[in-house]
């Protein structure tokens, strides 16, 4: 009997074109669009070397440290920042006028940056000069107030801290993958579609089919269990297809700990199904309305987990941590993030447990409604 229900539920779900579209085809389309949008964004973020002119006057020639800095930033390497020309003032003005450079630097009493327009390149030139002044100022202060420190190697330590800063920023951090994490989180929650469906077609007060199966000699929980199992099998298969699409077609880097990723998304799929169950059983709205509620709730969770604006995730985590700790999409996103960036699994398991607690709470509340065997009205 159980397998009869399970097999037929599989058939019903597999042939449900609308559900399959929203839970499989739509996410694949969305992932593809994300990939297109973010690949442009990523390529747009690569530093293009900034065309810069430096007026090669006497003041510049004696400013040895600054000269070294500009030279090092103009060296032909992966980190080359400037494409620098050393020219006369007139030539620099002409180059700027003709838009062949983003700006020029002229050293008089102090180092001046001359630009024609505002923009990222101009800001970058300005911040290099500002940073230079800041470092010079720090060294001057130390040498005045504590010359002993310079002999004791403060400058080397300053260098070290700069190196550390560089190390972190050079790590292979790709903020774009976080968008795909939220997409995976959202898709896990779309399992709710099947949860809504399973519960509607089992409860006599929610559908005609529910009434029909309720008068059969099958225990309600056997019906529900078979329906949920079929829902999980179909939905998790869809999640696996999506993961495969992300990994092998779009080449999204999800790290190298694939088994924990599979566990996390499986628990995420359970959480989604449980959310759908609660939305399905807790009210007598139409099936379409329930699906709309589910999609809206899922979108809200995804938004709060940073799907549309990445910063939202961090704002929520800092300002309203409670919200982050009840958001299943956030658990999934954060779990994937922690697998990618941390060497230990503590934070990962925190998120898995968070999802399990969410699932349990959803099912427990649903049980209050499901346990009814007779109704006041149908």
């Amino acid at each position: 009997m159980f397998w009869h229900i399970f097999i037929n539920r599989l058939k019903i779900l597999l042939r449900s074109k609308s559900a399959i579209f929203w839970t499989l085809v739509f996410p694949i389309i969305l992932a593809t669009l994300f990939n297109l949008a973010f690949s442009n964004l990523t390529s747009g973020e690569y530093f293009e070397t900034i065309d810069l002119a430096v007026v090669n006057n006497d003041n510049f020639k004696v400013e040895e440290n600054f000269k070294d800095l500009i030279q090092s930033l103009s060296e032909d390497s992966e980190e080359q920042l400037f494409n620098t020309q050393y020219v006369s003032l007139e030539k620099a003005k002409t180059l700027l006028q003709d838009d062949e450079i983003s700006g020029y630097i002229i050293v008089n009493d102090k180092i001046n940056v001359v630009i024609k327009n505002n923009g990222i390149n101009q800001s970058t030139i300005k911040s290099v000069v500002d940073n230079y002044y800041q470092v010079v100022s720090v060294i001057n202060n130390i040498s005045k107030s504590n010359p002993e420190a310079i002999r004791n190697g403060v400058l080397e330590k300053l260098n070290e801290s700069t190196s550390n800063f560089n190390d972190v920023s050079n790590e292979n951090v790709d903020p774009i993958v976080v968008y795909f994490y939220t997409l995976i989180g959202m898709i896990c929650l779309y399992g709710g579609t099947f949860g809504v469906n399973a519960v509607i077609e089992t409860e006599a007060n929610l559908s005609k089919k529910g009434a029909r199966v309720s008068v059969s000699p099958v225990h309600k929980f056997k019906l529900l269990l078979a329906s949920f199992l079929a829902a999980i099998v179909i939905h998790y298969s869809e999640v696996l297809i999506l993961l495969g699409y992300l990994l092998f077609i779009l080449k999204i880097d999800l790290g190298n700990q694939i088994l924990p990723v599979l566990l996390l998304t499986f628990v995420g799929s359970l959480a989604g199904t449980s959310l759908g169950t609660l939305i399905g059983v807790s009210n007598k709205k139409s099936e379409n309305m329930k699906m709309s509620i589910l999609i809206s709730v899922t979108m809200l969770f995804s938004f709060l987990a940073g799907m549309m604006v990445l910063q939202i995730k961090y704002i929520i985590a800092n300002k309203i941590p409670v919200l982050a700790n009840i958001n299943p999409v956030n658990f999934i996103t954060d779990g994937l993030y922690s697998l990618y960036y941390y060497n230990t699994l503590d934070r990962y398991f925190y998120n898995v447990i968070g999802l399990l607690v969410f699932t349990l709470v959803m099912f427990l509340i649903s049980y209050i409604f499901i346990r009814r065997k007779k109704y006041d009205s149908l």
Partner: protein
Amino acid sequence: MKNIIEVKKLTKHYKDFKALDNLSFEVKEGEILGLLGPNGSGKSTTINCILSLLNFDKGSIKILGQEMTPDAYDIKSKIGVVFQDVAVFDELTVYENINYFCGLYVNDKKIRQQYISDAIDLVGLKEFERFYPKQLSGGLLRRLNIACGIAHKPSIIILDEPTVAVDPQSRNNILEGIKQLNKNGATIVYTTHYMEEVEILCDRIIILDKGKIVASGTSKELKELVSIEEKITVELESFNDKFLEELKGSKNIGEVIYNDNILFVTYKKGKHNLKDLIDFMQVNKIKYNKIFSELPTLNDVFLELTGKELRD
């Protein structure tokens, strides 16, 4: 005959609205019992209470001598239900739908296949086996709905208005199928607001109104409750008040109405009423085009008992 279903003093409210008012009746083994009443009279509520889907305020329901509860799986396995609304899966074919619902009752695959085949033959859906519900007409869909409810060969079948909005061909097919199921031994409860159906099908009829039993008995017994014996309608060329008064004074006459060249006469009792009326018209040289006579219907019974039409 033993009682298969016993309903005693059943009372049910929907908030302040009393849907069932102290309802008591029995369904005998092997009979077709018709629950007849207008929309909102409490037929479906009665069925849903019997099936233990609805809570009720007072009363008791026994099926096969046992108290009916949601967990009475042994009783449920003997019941087949056809609800008023079509309840099938759009994603499954005709055959698969019947298989799914039959499989909730019958585990053995071979027996099930035979049962499905019998059900498909009974409702005449053989050539539509591989069709999906959306490919079926309303009438065929209703037949599928019935097949899904009765494929497991239940000994008690409850049909809640199974012919609503069905074409005449499908209706005949459904009614013939129900007769066949009854011949095969099933006890049937049939709710409808179509009086013609209960007259054709049912051994016994319960007329419901506002959650109460207005009358019950065989069709003949119910018709004996009304004060009219015969209704005659005549299409005339002309008529006048003198004739009208004279006719009203004739024997056995109940009511005489003349309107737009149509004369409507009811007779309280007596034989040869039609002949007497024709004689009256011939004597008075009253020309007529058409004349026809009707016996009282269940609608007349309902009208006389409640003051309103069955389909109001």
